[in-house]
């Protein structure tokens, strides 16, 4: 097994740990983290299925198309729960529905299901980065500290994980198509970087779940 393959394989370890931890403590989690756990479960299922496809040398790109749409819905649900009362739910759900329409059109007509859906991934990353950046500002508000102060530290870790991964993804997915055209080794390094940021994201998720208020 090559170095790059080992890194890609290793990047699944934090995913597994986070999924198991979230499943074991699901009943004790506060509402926001319960909602977020569904994103963890979904990404766990998709990532391990696609890993299995990779082992049997089958194209796992259709799974990525599903992951982008379903993952964004889960994250929209999470941010809607988090920002409830401060950001109109209709705004977040309208964005989610529009994105769902866009990614469906993209998968059907622009980047078919057996190809890498870089456009949808980039748009998804932009939307998540907007929500994550705004959430940092949201947590600085005194009224938010008063009302949901107990879970802010935990939610900050999760938000940071999402921000780090999706902001790096914007660069990777956006330049991915350009870089692939230049050299195969550069393309492989891109995916190693992607795996590294994925490890960072799931580590942040794990810390976030770990640091939750246990009272």
């Amino acid at each position, binding site marked *: 097994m090559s170095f790059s393959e080992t890194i890609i394989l290793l990047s699944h370890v934090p995913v597994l740990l986070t999924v198991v931890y979230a499943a074991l403590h699901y009943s004790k989690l506060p509402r926001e983290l319960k909602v977020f756990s569904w994103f963890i479960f979904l990404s766990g299922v998709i990532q391990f299925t696609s890993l299995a496809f990779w082992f049997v040398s089958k194209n796992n790109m259709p799974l990525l198309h599903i992951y982008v749409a379903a993952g964004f819905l889960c994250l929209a649900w999470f941010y809607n729960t988090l*920002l409830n*009362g*401060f*950001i*109109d739910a209709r*705004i977040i759900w309208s964005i989610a529905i529009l994105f769902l329409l866009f990614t469906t059109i993209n998968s059907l007509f622009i980047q078919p299901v057996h190809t890498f859906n870089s456009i949808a991934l*980039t748009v998804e990353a*932009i*939307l998540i*980065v*907007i*929500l994550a*950046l*705004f959430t940092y*500002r*949201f947590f600085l*508000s005194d*009224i938010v500290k008063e009302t949901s102060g107990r879970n802010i530290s935990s939610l900050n870790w999760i938000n940071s994980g999402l921000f780090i991964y999706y902001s790096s993804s*914007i*660069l990777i997915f*956006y*330049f991915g198509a*350009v870089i692939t*055209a*230049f050299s195969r080794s550069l393309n492989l390094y891109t995916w190693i970087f992607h795996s590294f940021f994925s490890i960072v994201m799931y580590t942040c998720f794990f810390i976030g779940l770990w640091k939750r208020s246990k009272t």
Partner: protein
Amino acid sequence: METIKDLSFLNALLPLAVIVFIIGIGVVFLNLHFQKNLSVQKLRQEALKSSYQQDLLRSNIHAQEEERKRIAQDLHDELGAVMSIMRMHLMVLEQQSADGTKQLQAPLQYVRQLSETALASVRSISHRLMPPQLESFGLKAALESVTEQINRAGEIKIELGCEAPMDGLHWLVNLGLFRIIMEMINNTLKHAGARSIRVDLFRHGQELVCYYTDDGRGLSDGNTSKGLGLKSIEGRVNSLGGKLEMGNQESGGYYAIVRLTLPA
């Protein structure tokens, strides 16, 4: 084969700049929306706090009135009864001493007079704590009794206008309004140097309105929210969920309007 040098600035960096711009616009939009909702949430929180404080004030006043009622009853029924018996025995002893040893008669008479003064004090304290007419005959009778007593003294004339039916009011409303009016009368007597007071009570459906006016000096400038008496009036009106409007009349003198919405 192409090289990285072939990547033009416009092709590679301009779209990225557009992405960053979109992200910036998105965050600014969410922030503006958040600022708008933040003030709504702050107002909601303030309203919650104020409602909690009002509940606290109401339960405080309720507890205070219950305690006053209990003390007034205990004073009147227990201490008052014991002192009445004591006075009766002293009267018997006085009669007996008149027949025998006359040297005891004067001290006994003195002790009996003391017991009568104490009995009158107990009665007066218990009536001040909880006017007996208020519970038995209602607000109108209690106010009439008080105004009659004050008018009898001759220093000031109180006119009471109460044509509205005051039956069926909760005892806390009766008591609250009674205490508010008494506090206003007390303020007028103490500070206004007035010669007359007019109190009118009206009832429009579920709304009970009390107009209070005097012909005294009125409130001094900037005194509308100061003083224990005024604060007590405000507190009581708030505890009853009512509205208080007060100030100086154009013709001079103080006026106050208390509006209470009675529960259906």
